[in-house]
């Protein structure tokens, strides 16, 4: 049985899909994290975000996070889904879902996965403002 679902897609991410993948009769809890596009960053109004990825490598790095989380925490299954392309305010760039028999492991693995994703996975976002655009984290 596949223990992890790793996905990069230009389509809208689906919370229920992630839930359904991890849900199991042996599990008492599911922790989820949903990233959403905020309307502002450092007090500047964002109009949209554009996500791009080095896809084959990003998939590998996401799979490493999944495999490491499955080793490190007493969890059952996990899903890491990331969107690419143009996202509007309120859209969902990322969903993490983790199921486990006991809830603390699910919470810990979920936080570990999103924290690590933000450090290692080769995905970039460009914020578009009224008056220009900025590659996040890359400011010269």
């Amino acid at each position, binding site marked *: 049985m596949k223990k992890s679902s790793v996905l990069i897609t230009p389509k809208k991410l689906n919370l229920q899909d992630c839930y359904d993948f991890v849900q199991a009769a042996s599990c008492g809890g599911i922790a989820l994290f949903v990233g959403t596009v905020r309307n502002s960053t450092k007090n500047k109004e964002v109009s949209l975000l554009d996500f791009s*990825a080095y896809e084959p490598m990003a998939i590998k790095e996401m799979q490493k996070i999944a495999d490491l989380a499955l080793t490190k925490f007493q969890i059952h299954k996990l899903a890491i889904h990331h969107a690419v392309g143009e996202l509007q305010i309120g859209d969902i760039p990322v969903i993490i879902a983790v199921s486990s028999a006991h809830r603390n492991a699910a919470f810990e693995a979920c936080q570990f996965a999103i924290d690590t994703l933000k450090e290692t996975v*080769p*995905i970039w976002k460009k914020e578009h403002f009224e008056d220009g655009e900025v590659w996040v984290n890359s400011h010269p």
Partner: protein
Amino acid sequence: MKIQLLFFGIATDLVGENSVFIELKSAATISELKKDLLKKYSKLKNIEDFAIAVNEEYGENDLVLQENDVVAIIPPVSGG
């Protein structure tokens, strides 16, 4: 020897390319490549820092490159 360079994120914008093939001296390391890149594409100095991936895996500075390697310039990531 010939390697392929891939640029992502802000690096694409700075360099104006997604992908180029370049000639490199045999057995060059990643840190040698980085120096070459900063000479060849001086605008890359505008990025705080960048990592290098070789054939889709992060590489340390002392990694020795091989003919036909696919080498990606990875600016600070910002997914999630």
